[in-house]
Structure formats: C-alpha cells, structure tokens
C-alpha cells in the first residue's frame, strides 16, 4: 500500500465520485526492471482510475515512469520487467495476470495505443492501409478482403487523411508528418476501443500539425471514449485533460483535476514545472529555481562593466544580405532551401530565428557560421566579408563566432575528455595565447561558469547526461571569447526543467559576457523568452521580422498568426 497516496486521498482528489465501477483501476502499481539481484524500480506505488469518457493525463519528465505505467496497462513492459499491483482491473476484469493470448485479445480491441512519431511507429516498409488493416484482421473483425479495404479507407477518412484510397496504398514516408500521425491514430481506433492511450502523440510534430492532431484526439474523446494522455508538455495536457497526474522518479507527486493542477499547483515540483515553461510572460525572469552563478572571471567582468556598447550597437556585428541557398535533392532537382533572407545582428543582441522543420533556419545558421557558402548574397562579420572570404582568411576570425548544436554529443570527438574538448577551444582564443598551465585553470573556471564541477574534466561526453553535455558545449562555445554564439536548437532535446536551466545559463552568460546570440528554434516560447528580435521563416523565406513582442503578440503575416495560434497555451495559468 502506498503511504503517500492512499486510496482515500485519491478519492478526495477525484472531481466526481464514481457512479459505477470505473473503466480502469490501478492500485499500488510497482514496476521494476532487471534481474532479481539488481532490480531497478521505475514505477513505485502508483494508483489512479479512469472513468468512462474521461481524459486522464500523466505528465512528467524523462525517467518519471509515465510511459512504463501506460505500457503496464497493455502488458508490454518487456521481458525483463517485474509488474506488481494490488489491483489492476479493466472493465471490471482483472488484468493483473493475463496470459499472452488474453493480452492480445485486449490490445487494439479494447485498449488502443498511439505512440509518438508515426515515422518510426508505422512499419516503414508496409503501406499504411495494411497497418490499419492489421488491427482489424488480427481480431478477425473483418471477413473479406474487400470489406477490409473499405473499412481502412473509412478509417483514414475518419481521421481526416485526404485521398484515403490512394494513401492507404502508400508507404509511411510518402505521407506528410500530420497524415502519418493521423494514420497511426487510425490504427489505434480501428476497433473503437473503450480506452485510448496516447503516449506523447504530438512530440515530434511541428506546432501547427500538433494543433491538428490534438483536435483529432479531442474529437475521439468527444465520441465518449476514455483516454490516457502521456506527455511532457504541460500546455498540451492542459488543453485536453480532465484529470492530471504529475509523476517524478516513478512516483505520483500530485494528482488532481486539470483546473486544480494548473490553477493551484500544490507541490513544489509541479510549480517548478509550470514556471519552467518559457513564454512571453517569462521574459526577463529566471525559469529554473537555480540562482545566477557567481562569475569568477575578473576579466569578463571588467569587459562587461567597462565596454561602452552604444557605439557598437549602431554598426551590426553580423549582417546577412539576401541569402539564397539551393541544394540538389536525391532526384537530381535543385531545391531552394533559403530564399532571399536578410538580417542583422547587433552587439549584445539576441536574434531569434523561428520556423517549423524544413523552413531553412538551420541552413541560415550554417551560412552565418560560413560552414555553408550562400549561392547568392553574403554574410559580413563586423563589416568585412565573411562568407565571401576564403577559409584561410576566416580561420583566424572564427574565434569570434561559436556555435552550440542541438545534439552536443555528436559535436564532441568521442575519444576526447571534457578537458581536452574545452582546452582545444581555449587554444583558439585570439589575442595573447594562453600557456598550458593557465589553460588548465581556465578549463576549471569555464566548467564552473557553466555550472559543472571540475570532476567532469576527465569524463567523456558519452558519460554525461543531456543537460551536462549541453553545458560542456556552452563552455566550449564561450572558451574562445566569441562575440557571437550561434545556438541551433540548443534545448530541443532537453526536458523542460533542464531546458529551463540551460536557458537561464544562456541568459546569464549573455549579460555577463556581452555576447550576441543568433538563436534558432522551432519553439516559439523559447524564442520569445530569450530574443530581442525575431525572424520567422517559412519554406525558406523570412516571412516576418521584428521585435519579439511585436511578432508574437501582434503578428500581421497570416503564417505567423497561424503559427502563434497553434501554440498550445496553458489554459489555467497561475496568477
């Protein structure tokens, strides 16, 4: 029996007392992995219930046990797992100890499951129609081949896939991202299950597509089906859920109605999570609970204090002039990826570039770094040619502009220690070169600056967590004392609390080192939180540019409007 959340408190939290037996009851669920001697508990004493027609959301960061909890309900926790519960009933039937055959009868037919990212959740070698048909034929719901085809088309139609008969014969990669996700949902609702579990159904999707998929899920719910929604995205959850369960480290930290959780979060963790979401409101404030680090580097402080910036602000640090970039596609055709994009980045300024996948924002970043040569137009750095210069000429000036990637791991030589990674960047610092000893002490200072203990010096990138890696990447980026740091989706792969820490760190460094950021992200909230000015890209074109507030709060381009509207908002924002 779970001590923290006894059954009694559970009842109290439930908004409506159950009229009859709930659809699903989970009581004191424990799941652990590994062999008996080194068993690792991932779900600890979790209890909840789902009533007919209700949507229960489970939120939490990676490793919180939310996905495992969901998978327990379809008996798919894996061969090495150990599941134990006081009570586990579905439709009044005990599903605690089911055999393989009984589980199979349940899956798809009574409980539908939607995974994230249809590109990998649909068999890439089978037509989507077959995948949908599989759900039908496995449970022998359909007799003839013709009926099957007909029903598949019907289902695709139902989930809003255009030209369903054609699409049914196509492979997943031939469909657009949204259509794919719709098809995946179709596989789950094919047999009209009583419960639909959606595990991060919109995570890999662009924000506009995400909005459509959420609409589709809402429709499903409106047909009276119960739903469990698993997500790390609180905003998404706030739009859909009747009840919210917040999980951390395998335990439920808070459980309540949507209104209560978002309007009046009781637990510190929940509050922290809500606060960590970057948005327009969070601008200028800290997202994480950490305090600003003490900055040791005297020189940096001096620079921060003494440099008069007004004069420099006038002449742009980096200027991109009508950039055009084309790539040859696999079919041999030229594709214009960036089309006539211009921008300026001033001293100490942060320019956010926002856009959905394929909008060309990363290519712009690479051209700013002169890693890609524009087909037309040029980038100038402090007024002198940058992309037009030869690589040899650029090499000396490269220390002026650094980069932080989305995936820091691949940007580290896996054989190198953290110390060597940073030392290598320090050696590039222009001006008076540092000797070996001072570089060593500098490495420690830089690690300290990004909030890592000197113990990490000897570690290797693979041994670090995602947030730690990104901190090392930042340390490397600032080591040569750059004037500009290009950040290409630096927090896209991180959990919201880690994301908050990294964003805070970036903010702290900006004010401390007086660098300028060229900040690329798909996340409008993140961009809005950090940027002074914003450039919105769509299909390679800069559709709108301006001050961050202007663009996000008063967009005048239809695309920008659509984009802003599609961002899920927290419905019950704490005051």
């Amino acid at each position, binding site marked *: 029996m779970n001590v923290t959340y006894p059954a009694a408190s559970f009842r109290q939290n439930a908004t409506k007392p159950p009229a009859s037996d709930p659809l699903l009851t989970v009581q004191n669920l424990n799941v652990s992995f590994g062999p008996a001697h080194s068993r690792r508990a991932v779900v600890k004493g979790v209890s909840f219930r789902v009533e007919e027609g209700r949507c229960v959301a489970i939120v939490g960061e*990676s490793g919180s046990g939310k996905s495992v909890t969901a998978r327990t309900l379809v008996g798919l926790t894996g061969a090495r797992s150990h599941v134990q519960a006081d009570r586990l009933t579905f439709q009044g039937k005990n599903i605690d100890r089911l055999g393989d055959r009984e589980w199979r009868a349940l899956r798809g037919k009574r409980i539908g499951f939607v995974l994230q990212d249809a590109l990998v959740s649909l068999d890439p070698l089978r037509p989507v129609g077959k995948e949908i048909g599989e759900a039908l034929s496995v449970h022998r719901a359909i007799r003839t081949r013709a009926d099957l085809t007909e029903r598949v088309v019907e289902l695709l139609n139902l989930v809003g896939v255009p030209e369903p008969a054609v699409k049914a014969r196509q492979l997943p990669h031939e469909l657009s991202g949204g259509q794919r996700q719709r098809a995946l949902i179709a596989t789950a609702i094919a047999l009209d299950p009583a419960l639909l579990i959606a595990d991060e159904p919109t995570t890999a999707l662009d924000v506009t597509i995400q909005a459509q998929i959420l609409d589709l899920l809402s429709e499903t719910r409106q047909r009276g089906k119960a739903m469990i929604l698993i997500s790390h995205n609180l905003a998404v959850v706030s739009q859909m859920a009747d009840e919210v369960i917040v999980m951390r480290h395998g335990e439920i930290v808070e459980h309540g109605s949507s209104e209560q959780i978002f309007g009046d979060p009781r637990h510190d963790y929940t509050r922290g999570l809500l606060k960590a979401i970057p948005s327009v409101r969070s601008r200028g404030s800290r997202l994480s609970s950490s305090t600003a680090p003490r900055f040791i580097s005297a020189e940096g402080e001096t620079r921060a204090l003494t440099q008069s910036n007004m004069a420099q602000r006038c002449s742009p640090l980096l200027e991109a002039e009508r950039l055009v970039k084309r790539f040859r596609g696999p079919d041999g055709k030229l594709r214009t990826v960036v089309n006539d994009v211009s921008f300026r980045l001033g001293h100490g300024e942060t320019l956010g570039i926002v856009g959905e996948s394929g909008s060309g924002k990363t290519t712009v970043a690479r051209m700013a770094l002169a890693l890609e040569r524009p087909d037309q137009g040029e980038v100038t750095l402090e007024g002198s040619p940058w992309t037009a210069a030869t690589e040899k000429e650029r090499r000396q000036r490269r220390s002026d502009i650094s980069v932080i990637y989305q995936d820091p791991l691949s940007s580290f030589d896996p054989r190198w220690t953290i110390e060597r990674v940073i030392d290598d960047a320090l050696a590039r610092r222009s001006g008076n070169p540092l000797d070996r000893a001072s570089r060593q002490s500098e490495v420690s200072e830089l690690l300290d600056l990004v909030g890592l203990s000197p113990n990490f010096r000897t570690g290797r990138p693979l041994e670090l967590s995602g947030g730690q890696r990104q901190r090392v990447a930042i340390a490397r980026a600032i080591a040569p004392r750059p004037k500009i740091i290009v950040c290409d989706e630096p927090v896209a792969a991180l959990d919201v609390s880690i994301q908050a820490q990294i964003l805070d760190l970036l903010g702290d460094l900006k004010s401390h080192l007086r660098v300028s950021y060229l900040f690329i992200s798909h996340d409008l909230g993140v961009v809005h939180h950090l940027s002074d000015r914003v450039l919105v890209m769509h299909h390679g074109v800069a559709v709108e540019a301006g001050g961050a507030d202007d663009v996000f709060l008063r967009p005048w381009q239809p695309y920008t409007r659509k984009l802003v509207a599609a961002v899920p908002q927290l419905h019950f924002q704490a005051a």
Partner: protein
Amino acid sequence: MSFANGSPGHTKAFITARVLTGARMFPVPVYIATVFTAFFLIAAIAPKLLQTHDPLALSLMSPLRAPSLTHWLGTDQSGRDLYSRIVAGTGQSLSIGLGATALSLAIALILGVTAGLSGGWIDNVLSRLFDALFALPTLFLALLFVSLLGTSVSTLIIAVGLGTSPGYARMVRVQVLRVKATGYVEAAKALGHSPRGILFKHILPNAISPLATMFTLGIGQAIIWASGLSFLGLGVAPPSSEWGALLNAGRNYVIYAWWLEVMPGIAIATFALSVTVIGQYVQQRLEGRIELP
C-alpha cells in the same frame, strides 16, 4: 528495454546501459578466447615451451597412434607427435595470417584514406578500383598469384593480403567519409582548425580505431584462406607443419586416423574463433564508447 523507446531519455538511457554493461561484464567466452590466444602466441614465439615431443622426430615404431596420454593428439604416419607438430606449425600459420592482414590493411589504409579524403575524381577512380578488386574472389586471386609466381610463403601473404584488401579499403573509405561528416569535425572547423589539424586530430584516429577490430577478425580469416591454399596443395608443402599443410596431409588418413584431419582443423577453428571473439568484444566496447547506436 523496449519500453523506453520514444521517450526523450531513450538515447541517454540506452548508451548508459551499454557503457555500464561493457564496464561490468567481461564475458566468460572472452576469458576463454584470451587464454587460447595466449597459448597460440606462446606457441608461435617459443614453441619449445609447449611441445611434448620433437615435432620432426620420426618414431617408425609408433605410427598412426590414436590420442593418448603420451601423445595428446595422437601421432602421424611417421610416428611424429601431432600435438607438437601443431604447436610447431603455429608460428608459420600465424605469421602468414598476421603478414597478410597487415599488408591488406596497409594497402587499405593508404588507398582508403586517400579516396575518402580527396573526393572528386580520385575518389571515383579508387572506388571503382576497390569495386573491381572486390569483385574478384579472394581465393581465385590467390590462385592467380600462385600460378604466376609459384608457391612460397611470400606469395601466400601477397595473395591473401591483396585479395582481402579491397573490402578493408572500402571500409576505411566509408569510415573516413563518416568521420568527415560528424558534428565534431564541423565543430573543429567552426573553431578555426586547419584541415591538416582536423585530419590528424579527429579524422584519422576515429576512422582507424574501428580497424583494430578488423585486424583481429582479419587474422583468423587470413589463416583460413592461406590454409585453404595449402589444403589444395598450392600453399606450404609438408614436411612443414603449417596448419593447412597438416590438414592436407591428414585428409588421406581420415578414415582410419581421424585425428590427423580433425585436430589441425580444430586448431585453425579455435584460433580463428578466439581472435574473432576478442575482436567482436573489442568492437562492442568501442561502439559503446565511440560510435552512436
């Protein structure tokens, strides 16, 4: 671990798991393989330490004796101790395997790195060359060399070395291309490092380290090829006790003195298996540390 798929922590958890597994477990087969490899290395370097009899001493009174306590693996038609002969042949077999693999990798490295780095028409020409050589079966190439140059240990080494090199050369090229495209090479470029510096600091070390595994795996295969030639009577001839030559000689006795055929074969297989197990283990370790899954 299938449950973790798709969640943001997947990659991290996966890698951590692998690193931990690698660090904790040193599987039993690897222990056994190491012991065998050590045995064969000693046999190659100091065969006298392991021999129980003089491998060349005839004992006309005890021909074709089955394995026993005196003759662990039996005796051959001249009463020579088979175990001691296998030990005596280890040096030659191993040096053929090592020599051929080293030659093969040397060719592969020079040409593969050149192709991978230069790109353009040089890459095209070299790649076609690898394709053409790759299309020629190793054994056939070896036979061509035998028919051209006659048989000798050096012909064997050249033939097997050349025959196996295109496969490695392709691999080296792909490795160089892979490393060239990694984030850290770009990061180094963005830091303003020179191409030369990047080549020596990043590309070469990272492209070559997977080849260490190939080297161990290659030795076993090279020995199998070379002994295949001896087996066809086109390699090393008796009275040398190179393993393939022993197999070739043992074949005629196989109905009545099975050990003469079975034991040298087991020696080859054991050695090849041992180095393969070690090679694969090292590969796994390297993958856990170096390559992303």
